[in-house]
């Protein structure tokens, strides 16, 4: 599949933003961060900026962005529609939570519960994003059980590293310390899940040129004359090939930057609290870089079955 920049930005930015909102809700619920005005203003601004910029990027790739509101209507059947509805619903608890934190200076009691509801909604929204891809049978690499766990875990790790970094700057050390174990756990899970995902997508697809044409009974099928001598919409959108050439190297980069380096850096900041801010700052940057590579591969490596008609 063609790895469109807007979709890579949409999935990574909203993933990190919702991850951040998730951890803010959890930390407030556990009473680990008090409702400080300045801190709240900065973290919620970053979280909402990531989410809103990501959602806007996803509407900009539409052929008719002005009609985007229509995408909210078909939640009964369409995961894209569900994602749109959930994204908007999530603004209610997270928005109330942010207002209470920043304006009322309160993130305890009822507001902590609202924060926790927002945390749940944030993760459900990330899940619906992943299901847009998971539900497409025509792209076997995405239609696996590992797609959704991958999206959820990477949202949790990128959001978790962001909040750790900012909590370290704000001096909320109990929160930073409390986050160490869950983030290490989720990084390890993410590492295993990406390896499993790649081992699954490397297997041959159930569909082949033989099943696509139904000519398998006559032997091995190959295209000898293309319907058109210039690439058409289908080939431009689905026939992307560059990734397979560099996929091994890029997978290594995604694993090292997205999971291994942040794992080491988290342990490092735990052992050397005086340097924690720097360790976590670097961890945020390499993780986001790793996740962008991972997401690029997620699109670029995914082979659409229509390409079987084109021998690509």
């Amino acid at each position: 599949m063609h790895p469109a920049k807007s979709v890579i930005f949409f999935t990574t930015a909203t993933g990190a933003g919702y991850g951040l909102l998730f951890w803010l809700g959890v930390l407030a619920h556990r009473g680990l961060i008090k409702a400080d005005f300045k801190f709240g203003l900065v973290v919620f601004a970053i979280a909402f900026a990531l989410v809103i910029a990501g959602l806007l990027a996803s509407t900009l790739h539409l052929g008719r962005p002005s009609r985007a509101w229509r995408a909210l209507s078909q939640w009964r059947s369409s995961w894209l529609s569900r994602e749109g509805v959930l994204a908007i619903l999530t603004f209610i608890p997270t928005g109330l939570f942010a207002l209470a934190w920043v304006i009322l200076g309160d993130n305890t009691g009822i507001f902590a519960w609202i924060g926790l509801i927002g945390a749940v909604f944030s993760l459900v929204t990330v899940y619906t994003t992943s299901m847009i891809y998971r539900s497409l049978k025509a792209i076997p690499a995405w239609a696996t059980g590992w797609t959704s766990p991958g999206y959820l875990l990477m949202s949790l790790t990128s959001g978790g590293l962001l909040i750790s970094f900012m909590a370290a700057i704000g001096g909320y050390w109990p929160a930073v310390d409390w986050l160490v174990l869950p983030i290490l756990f989720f990084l390890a899970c993410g590492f295993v899940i990406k390896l499993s995902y790649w081992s699954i997508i490397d297997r041959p697809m159930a569909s082949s040129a033989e099943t696509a044409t139904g000519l398998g009974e006559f032997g091995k099928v190959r295209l000898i004359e293309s319907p058109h001598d210039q690439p058409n919409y289908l080939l431009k959108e689905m026939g992307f090939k560059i990734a397979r050439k560099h996929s091994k190297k890029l997978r290594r980069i995604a694993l090292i930057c997205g999971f291994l380096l942040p794992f080491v850096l988290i342990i490092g900041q735990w052992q050397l609290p005086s340097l924690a801010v720097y360790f976590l700052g670097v961890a945020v940057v390499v993780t986001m870089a790793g996740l962008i590579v991972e997401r690029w591969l997620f699109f670029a490596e995914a082979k659409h079955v229509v390409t079987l008609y084109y021998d690509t």
Partner: protein
Amino acid sequence: MTCLPKNPSAKKLGLVIDLDICVGCHACAVNCKEWNAAGQMAPLTDIDPYGAEPDGVWFNRIHTFEAVDSESGISRTVHFPKSCLHCEDAPCVTVCPTGASYKREEDGIVLVNTDICIGCKLCSWACPYGAREYDEDEGVMKKCTLCIDKIYNENLPQESRVPACVSTCPSGARSFGDLGDPKSDVSKLVAARKGYDLMPEQATKPVNKYLPPRPKRVGNATAPRLLEHKDDSSDGAGLLARWVDRILTA
């Protein structure tokens, strides 16, 4: 509404494509473009049509495949027209977030309402067969309508009320009809020739069926003698001819 019809009618309009007959002339694609460029889905925009890299919206594409049997080495060349299969479980319909994509309850034709399509392209990702086309100029998705504006058009004579690809096919490789009715001509044709679905593992239940090429003659594959009436004897000829024949033979 992008849920599939809850009470679909038994009628399933579709095409039967005979791969034994198709000669790969692309006339179906050309007539499809001609009709639909002025029909329900019009315009079918072309980008850079006379330039170095022409691109544009077409609902019908003709691939040519070769199937080679690894044991016997016998190969078959098969021309393979491909258009929307109007699937019963159309994945392009259910993924649509806007309700622009829908399957008609009365005859099963899958259509796009281009007035509300947002051009998110997800339907083209969901279709295993590449039947969905994006009109870059209009920013919306387009697709085969089974010539809905032709098959129900009462201004046309009855015999013209078939999709443009069917009426134009010079070899008669395309048939149109109700595949939901087991007594229809197309259903009988499918049963007789063992018509099949493309990519059945995708579980889309295509309505359109493909008829496989007939088995190749193997062995003494000389052409049949056409001159069965070859003139060896003069029996049955006229009196004068028989007389000349006898003289010249002697």
